């Protein structure tokens, strides 16, 4: 039986590229889709009959969501892209769609989108029409949590890391850069901060309830009580129902540190996680510490970490952004990351060995895996 073709999608500043392989050894790189468009996030729906959505805009045209049901052969634009209510009190408008998350498996067709500024939007029809999630966007604390309209992080103040509890469609987590992590247990009608234990060394009160800067937050699909967070101030784990994050990044070597953007999960083992350390010292170059690119993996929930650099360049000065690392569902698991210098690196053995499978692409914003059915 022919193996299903695996296709990591590399989303770049100037278009979408599809990397495909049937054996994870030989890779084809597609021609660009939507060349010149800023493609921030493309996600394939894992639910039966689902579509693939892409968050797109250009420098001059407003933000939109593109949809394909045939793995990118043909695309249609959302007939009602994510947007705030016209005439609303704060007169907010979506600058870009930053994040896409398929909804719960019991709710086919439901998707969530996070935006710049930090709005949350929901579609009930496979991404064709979108509506604001009023419980979040109009929450009495939103302006405070989102620090609106204060000057934002370099790419804008974004809402990211929308996570749906696989046991409960009404249990949601999201991350604000900046603002912190927030949780809803009623389908997004109400929200509460979930930041205890997270350091915020840039705030006057380091034990503040919100105002943190999570870079990436992930809920483990096989153990939804296990959360990991790569934060501006370290790498954390949270085991619910506890509400205090533990800085397991302290177990990384001190000269490497635990600053980075992405968190990537093993699809079946809640204790195995990959992160990509970057230099968060001095003026924050955000390149690998000492210019020596390396992935770090834990197999025990962050209690210990292993350096995985075999095959990576001895010196390199790129950054791996928060959406630019992913895994496939194979055994052994394939791990992939894309760089700001336009390369895609792949490991077919859970990070033990790395190979460059694409180069000379534009800056990679995100990378996701889809396995055609």
């Amino acid at each position, binding site marked *: 039986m022919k193996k299903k073709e695996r296709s990591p999608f590399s989303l770049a500043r100037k278009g979408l590229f599809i990397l495909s392989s049937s054996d994870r050894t030989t890779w084809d790189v597609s021609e660009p889709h939507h060349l*010149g468009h*800023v493609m921030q996030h493309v996600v394939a729906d894992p639910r039966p009959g689902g579509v693939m959505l892409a968050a797109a805009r*250009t*420098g*001059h*045209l*407003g933000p*939109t969501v593109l949809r394909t049901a045939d793995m990118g052969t043909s695309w249609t*634009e*959302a*007939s009602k*892209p994510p*947007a*705030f*209510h*016209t*005439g*609303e009190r704060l*007169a*907010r*408008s*979506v600058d870009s769609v930053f994040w896409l998350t398929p909804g719960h498996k019991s709710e086919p067709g439901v998707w969530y989108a996070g935006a710049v500024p930090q709005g949350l939007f929901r579609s009930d029809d496979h991404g064709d029409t979108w509506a604001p999630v009023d419980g979040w966007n109009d929450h009495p604390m939103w302006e405070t949590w989102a620090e609106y309209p204060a000057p934002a992080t370099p790419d804008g103040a974004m809402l990211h890391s929308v996570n749906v509890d696989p046991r409960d469609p009404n249990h949601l987590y999201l991350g604000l850069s900046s603002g912190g992590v927030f949780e809803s247990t009623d389908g997004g009608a109400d929200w509460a901060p979930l930041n205890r234990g997270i350091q915020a060394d840039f705030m006057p009160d380091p034990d503040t309830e919100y105002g943190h800067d999570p870079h990436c937050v992930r809920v483990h699909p096989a153990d939804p009580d296990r959360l990991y967070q790569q934060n501006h101030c370290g790498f954390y784990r949270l085991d619910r129902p506890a509400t205090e994050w533990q800085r397991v990044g302290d177990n990384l070597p001190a000269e490497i540190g635990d600053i980075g953007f992405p968190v990537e999960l093993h699809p079946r083992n809640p204790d195995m996680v990959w992160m990509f350390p970057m230099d968060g010292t001095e003026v924050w170059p955000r390149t690998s510490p000492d210019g020596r690119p390396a992935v770090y993996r834990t197999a025990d929930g962050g209690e210990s970490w292993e350096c995985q650099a075999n095959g990576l360049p001895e010196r390199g000065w790129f950054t791996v952004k928060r959406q630019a690392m992913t895994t496939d569902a194979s055994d052994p698991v394939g791990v992939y990351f894309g760089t700001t210098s336009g390369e895609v690196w792949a490991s077919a053995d859970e990070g033990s060995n790395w190979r460059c499978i694409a180069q000379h692409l534009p800056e990679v914003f995100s990378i996701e895996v889809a396995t055609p059915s």
Partner: protein
Amino acid sequence: MDELLIDLDRRHPGLRFRVVDEQGRLRQHMRFFVNRAMNHGLHDPIDPDDEVVLMQALSGG
């Protein structure tokens, strides 16, 4: 002017939102020229014989 855009959007669904945000503001890198004069607002009147050009600064880099 906005009526013109709404009509264009009827013929090319989705066009208006890429040009005008949800609060009715012309997006940053869009400019209307009416009879070759710039800075026409979205709510300014236009005449049936006016020539309207929507210029877009293809920003990026």
